[in-house]
C-alpha cells in the first residue's frame, strides 16, 4: 500500500486531531515562529515592520538596562535554584521518616498549600509585609528591639530590593519541590534500608549514602524546573517593584514586558524573548546531558 493510500485510509484519524492542531498552530507554533521572525527580521511585526537584520540584538548588547537585568536574573536564579534544591530535601526527609502514615499525609497536604493560594495574593501579601510604614517585617524588627532597622523601605532601597525579592520566596518550600523529593524517596525499596540497618548505618549515613544518590534524578528535575522558572521571572518583579528602584530589580522578562506593552517596541521585546529562550534551552539541555553522562 502506498503512503498516499495509507494517509487517505487514515483520514478519519487526522480529522479527529484537527481541533488540537488548529489551536496549536494558531496559538503556539505561529507565535513561536513570529517571535523569531519579529526579532531577527523586522523592527515591528508583519505589515508595518521593516527589515533590520540583527540590529535588535546588537542594540541589546549595548543596552545597559538589559545588561543590568541579566545580572539581576542570574543572581535571582542562582539563589532560587540553590534554595529550591536544598531546603525541600530536608523537609521531604523529615516527612518521609515519620513513622505515622497519617502524619506524613497531613504534612504533604500542608506543603501543597502554597500551590492553591493564587501566586499573586502571596506577592501582594509580601508587598504588605515589606511596607515601610505598616509592614509586618518592620513591626517584627521593632518587637525584637531592632528599632534602627524598623523603618527600612525594603522594596524601595536600591541596595536591598533585590534581596527583598529573593526573600519573598520564604520559607522556600513552595509546593512541588518537596513533593517531587517525596516521590523519589518513596520509590526507594525497603530492602535497601533494611540492609543498611543491618550494617548499622544510622540516619545521617542512610541519607548520604542511600537517599542522596537515589534521588539524583529528582534533584536534577528540581534544578531544571527552578532554572526555567527563574530565568523567565516576570510577575514577581512586576508586582513588587516594577523593576525599580533605578533598575535594581529589573529582569529580562520584565524588560521585555515593558518594551512590548509600555513602549510598543514589539520587535525589540521579541529579541529579548528569544535570548531568554536560548538561555533556558541551552541550560536545560546542558543540565540533562551533564547529569546523564555521570550516571
Amino acid at each position, binding site marked *: 500500500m502506498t503512503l498516499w493510500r495509507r*494517509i487517505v485510509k*487514515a483520514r*478519519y*484519524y*487526522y480529522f*479527529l*486531531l484537527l*481541533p*488540537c492542531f488548529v489551536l*496549536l498552530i*494558531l*496559538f*503556539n507554533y505561529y*507565535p*513561536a515562529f*513570529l*517571535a523569531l521572525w*519579529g526579532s531577527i527580521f523586522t523592527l515591528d*511585526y508583519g505589515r508595518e515592520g521593516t527589515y533590520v537584520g540583527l540590529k535588535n540584538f546588537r542594540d541589546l548588547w549595548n543596552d545597559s538596562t538589559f545588561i543590568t537585568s541579566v545580572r539581576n536574573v542570574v543572581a535571582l536564579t542562582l539563589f532560587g535554584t540553590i534554595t529550591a534544591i536544598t531546603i525541600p530535601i530536608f523537609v521531604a526527609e*523529615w516527612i*518521609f521518616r*515519620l*513513622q505515622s*502514615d497519617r*502524619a*506524613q499525609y497531613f504534612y504533604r*497536604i*500542608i506543603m*501543597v498549600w*502554597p*500551590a*492553591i*493560594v*493564587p*501566586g*499573586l*495574593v*502571596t506577592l*501582594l*501579601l509580601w508587598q504588605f509585609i515589606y511596607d515601610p510604614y505598616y509592614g509586618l517585617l518592620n513591626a517584627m524588627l521593632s518587637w525584637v528591639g531592632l528599632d534602627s532597622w524598623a523603618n527600612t523601605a525594603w522594596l524601595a532601597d536600591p541596595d536591598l530590593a533585590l534581596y527583598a525579592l529573593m526573600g519573598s520566596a520564604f*520559607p522556600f*518550600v513552595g509546593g*512541588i519541590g518537596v*513533593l*517531587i523529593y517525596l*516521590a523519589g524517596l*518513596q520509590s526507594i525499596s*525497603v530492602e535497601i534500608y533494611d540492609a543498611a540497618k543491618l550494617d548499622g548505618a544510622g540516619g545521617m549515613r542512610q541519607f548520604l549514602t542511600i537517599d542522596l544518590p537515589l534521588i539524583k534524578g529528582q534533584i536534577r*528535575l528540581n534544578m531544571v*524546573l527552578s532554572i*526555567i522558572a527563574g530565568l523567565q521571572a516576570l*510577575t514577581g518583579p512586576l508586582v513588587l517593584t516594577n523593576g525599580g528602584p533605578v533598575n535594581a530589580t529589573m529582569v529580562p522578562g520584565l524588560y*521585555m*514586558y515593558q518594551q*512590548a*506593552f509600555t513602549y510598543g517596541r514589539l520587535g525589540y521585546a521579541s529579541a529579548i*524573548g528569544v535570548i*531568554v529562550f536560548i538561555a*533556558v*534551552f541551552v541550560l536545560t539541555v546542558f543540565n540533562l546531558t551533564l547529569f546523564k553522562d555521570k550516571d
Partner: protein
Amino acid sequence: MTERVSQPTEQKPTLAHTSGSSSLRKMMKEDWWKHLLLIIISIFLFFPFVITLIISFKDMNQFSVEPFWPTFPLHWGNYTEAGAIVVPYIFNSIVVSGTACFGVVLIGSLTAYVFASFSFPGRELLYYLILILLMIPNILTLVPSFVVVRDLRLLDTNWALILPWIAGGQVFAIFILRTFYAAMPKDLFEAARIDGAGELAIYARIAVPLSKSILGVVAIFNILGTWNDFLWPLITISTPDSYPLVLGLFRFQSQYYTVWGPLMAGYVIGTIPLIILFAFTSRLFVQGLAAGGIKL
C-alpha cells in the same frame, strides 16, 4: 507514570519496626524533632495568611492601634465591602477557567486517545511536534501571542483567554493521557468493535469512563494553572468588568492599598474558591503534583 497516579500512598520503609500498638510513645519519642521542625516550617508557610485573616476583621482604628493581634469586635462589614467587588471577578474566573478546562479535557483526551489507539502515517512525528512545545518557554511566545490575539480581534473578550489556554493546556494533558490510554487493555476496545461500536462511541463510552480519575487530575491542574494566571489576562483584558479574579485582585489592591481591612478581606475571599476545590479533591491534588513534576 500511570502507576504513580493510581497508587499514591506508598510502601514506606519503616525505619524502626513498629511492633504492635504500644509503639505510639516510642514513635513520638523518636519523631518529635521532625514534627517540631515541620511545624515550624508550616507556621512560616501559614503565618502571612493568618495575619491576613486577622487584619481582614479590623477597621482603620483597630489597625492603627493594634495591627497584628486579633481585636474585637470583628468587622464582618469588611467582607461585604470586599465581596461586592471581588465576587463578580470570581464568577468571571469560573466562566473562563471552567470553559478552558472543559476544552482541555475534551480535546486533550480525544487527541491522546487517537494517538494511543490507532496507527497512521506520521503519528510519531505529529506527537513529537506536540511534545516539543513543552520545551518552549512562555516568555518566548508571550509578545507574539498577544499580536496573534490582537490580529484575530479577540482582545478584551473571554476568547482571548479561553482559546490560548486550551491550546497551551492540552499539551500537557495529551502527554499524560496518551501514556494512560496506551496502557489500557486492548481487549476491551476489540470487544466493543466486534459488537459494531463506532470509534467515537468507544472513546466516549469506554475510554472516558475508565480514565475518570486521571481526567480529574488533568482538569484540576488545568484549573489551577489558568485560575492563577496573571500575566496573560493583564495584557489581553482591559475592561474591568470582565477581569478574572487574579487580575481583579491586583486592581482592587491598587484602589484599596492602606484600607487594610477590606483589602485583606478581599484576599481571603479570593483564596476561598481554590480552597473549596482543594478540600474536595486533595488526594488528586497531591498525586497530580507529584506525578506532574516527575514527568515534566
